[in-house]
């Protein structure tokens, strides 16, 4: 008789909530008539994600390993699950925006219709909307939440795919510039599959080296014989490569600008915020829990990659003329900053590291800010849809003071100016890194911040100090969802900058891995 594994439904409630909502969404897609589908889907997706958020908040303080040891419900998992659920809900609100585009939605009405065909042109302005994106996005959110809670490499891999596959799809569903969007999806998919193959091979090697894929078992095995040998180190490297790809860390960033630019902007926001949280959650867990004792194996690797990512993101960001691409490079640079925090792996014997809390805080802060920034991007439009070229933003401050002000706030936060959440986050991760003696890294990070600040500033300069172009874009009046998102993100950006104490406490208190 095989023993049934222990399964704490309460501890899994956030996951069940989100996945349940996704399943219900699929059923709604199947049964609800087309005209009521959109509001119903939005409602279900929001209920699911917010339910996930609330239940994970209720789980705060939980520390257990459940589902036969496959899932860890501990501080970081719960904190990041809540983060992902919250950010996911915000992204879903952006998905639901219907009053901005004259075409009524950011998503193509029928993905199967070839781009540019007569039917496609007909559907372009039809009131029909794509509603499958909601279950897809909910599945992705569920996958991300699973990703950060995975206590075993296999679950991690499955979660990786559960989060990736819907993303591949929805990044190809833009209503306008469909070719661009489809191309982005193909690139994202091919490179994503490539990276997951690497992750998988790493998994296999680690399994071969340690005989287990449970993170705690790997920890023990790697602690035993001086790091576990070539196989283990190779496996670790491959695993990390796979994860870094998802986190869009240079030099595994090749997809990021293309996909960020091609995907529908709400999806870009979703990817930029949630995927990053999830990927870093997994990186943290993998490095701290499984390889915490063989720190020397990954430290130099992460050290170097952090530098490369910051430099690449900051320097290439300078040359961009498209705002979405620019934000993509910004996200690459931020990934480097986050790695700085990851390096601040401290002294704790049970996987507590001084870098864990700060990194989680940074993830939350960055996610909120970047969603806000992309939300602003959806507001600025011309005849072709969103006006994302830098030159089109000239003089935006004249057209809409408020929009420009909000964008400026987000850009300042991304640049890490004090009294915004970006500064608090940066400070926290840098402190962790310096605490661990990574002086040179922090200096590079600071220089990179300065360089990156230049391209954020350039946008502000354009918005405020340039004359508006004659046939420039218009600033749309956002509907309720986008307004809500902007309100939340602006508030969060300011609050996390001015009085971050409570949230920092939360992150710091949650920063204890189990297993």
């Amino acid at each position: 008789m095989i023993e049934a594994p222990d399964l704490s439904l309460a501890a899994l409630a956030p996951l069940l909530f989100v996945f349940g909502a996704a399943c219900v969404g699929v059923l709604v897609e199947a049964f609800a008539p087309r005209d009521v589908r959109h509001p119903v889907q939005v409602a279900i997706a929001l209920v699911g994600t917010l339910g996930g958020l609330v239940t994970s908040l209720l789980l705060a303080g939980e520390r257990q390993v459940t589902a036969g040891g496959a899932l860890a419900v501990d501080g970081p998992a719960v904190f990041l699950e809540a983060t992902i659920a919250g950010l996911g809900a915000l992204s879903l609100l952006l998905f639901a925006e219907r009053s901005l585009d004259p075409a009524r939605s950011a998503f193509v009405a029928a993905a199967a219709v070839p781009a540019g065909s007569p039917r496609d042109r007909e559907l372009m302005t039809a009131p029909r909307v794509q509603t499958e994106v909601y279950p897809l996005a909910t599945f992705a959110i569920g996958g991300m939440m699973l990703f950060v809670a995975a206590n075993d490499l296999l679950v991690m891999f499955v979660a990786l795919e559960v989060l990736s596959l819907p993303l591949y799809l929805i990044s190809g569903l833009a209503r306008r510039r469909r070719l661009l969007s489809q191309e982005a999806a193909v690139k994202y998919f091919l490179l994503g599959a490539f990276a997951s193959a690497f992750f998988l091979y790493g998994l296999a090697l680690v399994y071969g080296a340690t005989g287990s894929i449970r993170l705690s078992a790997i920890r023990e095995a790697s602690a035993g014989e001086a790091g576990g040998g070539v196989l283990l180190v190779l496996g670790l490297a491959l695993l990390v490569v796979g994860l870094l790809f998802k986190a869009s860390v240079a030099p595994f960033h090749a997809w990021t600008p293309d996909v960020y630019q091609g995907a529908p902007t709400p999806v870009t926001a979703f990817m930029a915020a949630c995927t990053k949280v999830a990927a870093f959650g997994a990186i943290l867990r993998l490095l701290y829990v499984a390889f915490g004792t063989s720190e020397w194996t990954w430290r130099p690797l992460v050290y170097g990659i952090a530098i490369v990512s910051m430099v690449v993101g900051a320097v290439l960001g300078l040359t961009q003329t498209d705002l979405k691409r620019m934000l993509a490079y910004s996200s690459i640079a931020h990934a480097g900053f986050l790695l700085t925090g990851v390096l601040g792996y401290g002294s704790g014997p049970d996987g507590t590291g001084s870098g864990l809390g700060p990194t989680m805080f940074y993830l939350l802060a960055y996610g909120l800010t970047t969603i806000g920034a992309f939300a602003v991007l959806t507001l600025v439009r011309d005849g072709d849809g969103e006006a994302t070229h830098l030159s089109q933003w000239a003089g935006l401050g004249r057209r809409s003071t408020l929009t420009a002000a909000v964008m400026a706030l987000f850009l300042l936060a991304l640049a890490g100016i004090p009294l915004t959440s970006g500064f608090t986050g940066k400070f926290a991760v840098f402190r962790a890194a310096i605490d661990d003696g990574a002086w040179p890294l922090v200096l590079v990070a600071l220089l990179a911040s300065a360089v990156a600040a230049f391209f954020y500033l350039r946008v502000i300069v354009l918005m405020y100090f340039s004359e508006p172009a004659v046939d420039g874009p218009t600033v749309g009046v956002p509907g309720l969802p986008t307004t809500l998102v902007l309100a939340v993100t602006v508030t969060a950006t300011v609050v996390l900058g001015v009085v971050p104490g409570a949230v920092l406490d939360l992150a710091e208190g949650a920063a204890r891995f189990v297993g």
Partner: protein
Amino acid sequence: MSDFPFLLAMIAVPAVGAAAVTALPKGREQTARQLSLGVSLVVLLLAVLATIAFDVGGERFQLTTSVSWIPDFGVDFALGVDGIALVMLLLIGVLVPVVVVASWREEPTGRRSMRAFWAWLLLLESLMVGVFAATDVFLFYVFFEAMLVPMYFLIGSFGGPRRQYAAVKFFLYSLVGGLVMLAAVIGLYVVSANELGEGTFAFDALRQVEIDPGVQKLLFLGFFVAFAIKAPLVPFHTWLPDSGAEAPIGGAVLLVGVLDKVGTFGFIRYCLPLFPDASRELAPYVLVLAVAGILYAALLAMGQSDMKRLVSYTSIAHFGFIALGIFAFTTEATTGAVLYMVNHGIATGLLFLVVGMLIARGGSRLVGDYGGVAAQAPLLAGVFLVAGLASLALPGTNSFVSEFLVLIGSFPTRPVFTVLATVGIVLAALYVLLLYQRTMHGPPRGVLLEPAPEAPAPTTGGGGGATAATATLEAPAAAPARLRVRDLSRRELAVAAPMVALVIALGVYPQPLIDLIEPAVAATMSDVGADPAGVSPEAPVEGTD
């Protein structure tokens, strides 16, 4: 009364004022102006009251407020002032209302509302107060960086033709400096955590930390770079002429008068007490920079054709003096330097204001476009003269006292540097007097002439070195025209009068300020371990250069 949180109020009142101005409906420009003036006067009142409440002989930091802010970082929202900070607050209190009045008729470029200008100005005031009042290094850093934003928008939105360039340059310079300092701030925290067991940012606690000399040097450099950029020491100064020239007059006054003082204030408050060993060791290098700045900036100032740039360069020279005073490590010199900070704010502020008034009339920033103003506008010329003389530290003006103190104080320890610095005084006399003479006297020139109907339009955009000679040659061609220079209006008088009064008053009787400053300086000197003995501040004020 002393329980009243003056400092908090001084930060909160302008911040709330800024929010209120922003919230005003469109078109209420007049209300916005009046509100701003009211708020800034309230801050002045608070500053004065705080000074009264300040006990000169009391503890080092008074009027303290401390609230736990970010416990995870060990950061407190800790405010408190010593004498040095207090005089800076007074300076802010005085300058802001003056600037408000001076900017009363400022016209927005494009369709922009001026409400933003007032809001940014008030926000800037709030943050400046915060910078000087913070006794927590983290809080200081936050204010230090946050201060950039309003200034950036003031320059970028309301500045001159090259405002974009200037704004970005200003921001990036400051940001780079700030980020380097951030590294040092974090490092300081980590060091304190290692030394004290628990990390802290509290200034008083940090002073007690014994830091390894090598680390000290690194941290010192981190802070120093940021401050050196802020208070432009020579290799880091290139942003100031651009920003000073492109900023609106009000912004320029605050920029040079207060904002840049943060740098020198930082030297005194943070570099010296926290890293005494490093300070002593590196002082010669700093002094080289300071003296080089004095001479180099003075030379450059002479070559400027743009009045605002010229004034900016004079400031750089003055900052050299201040730095010299600080790093001479004598109480006199440092007291002089602090006093210089105040006086320079007033004197250069006045100079900027006058230049602004002149530019408002002529529409050009070039020296060569003006001439013979004194005949038409004697009041303006008079104020200009006072400002100029204060700037070159003529005895009887406020700057003299401080400059003299600096030189007297530094001579015993650093004779060579002091002698070299005195050369700067001569150069200062040259550029100020030349400026005055070219614009106020001589035949009328340039844009101040009404063009004759048949005469060709005067060339306003003359290149860098539009000299008096070429301008005089042009003059006969425009002979039939008449000058259209108005003298000072009542509003402008209201701006100039208090400043002139301060120039004179502080030149004659600086003692109250010195009394305020000296104990704090002495405490700093004991922190840094310098020889506190020196010439007493009551040294006879005699002899000129």
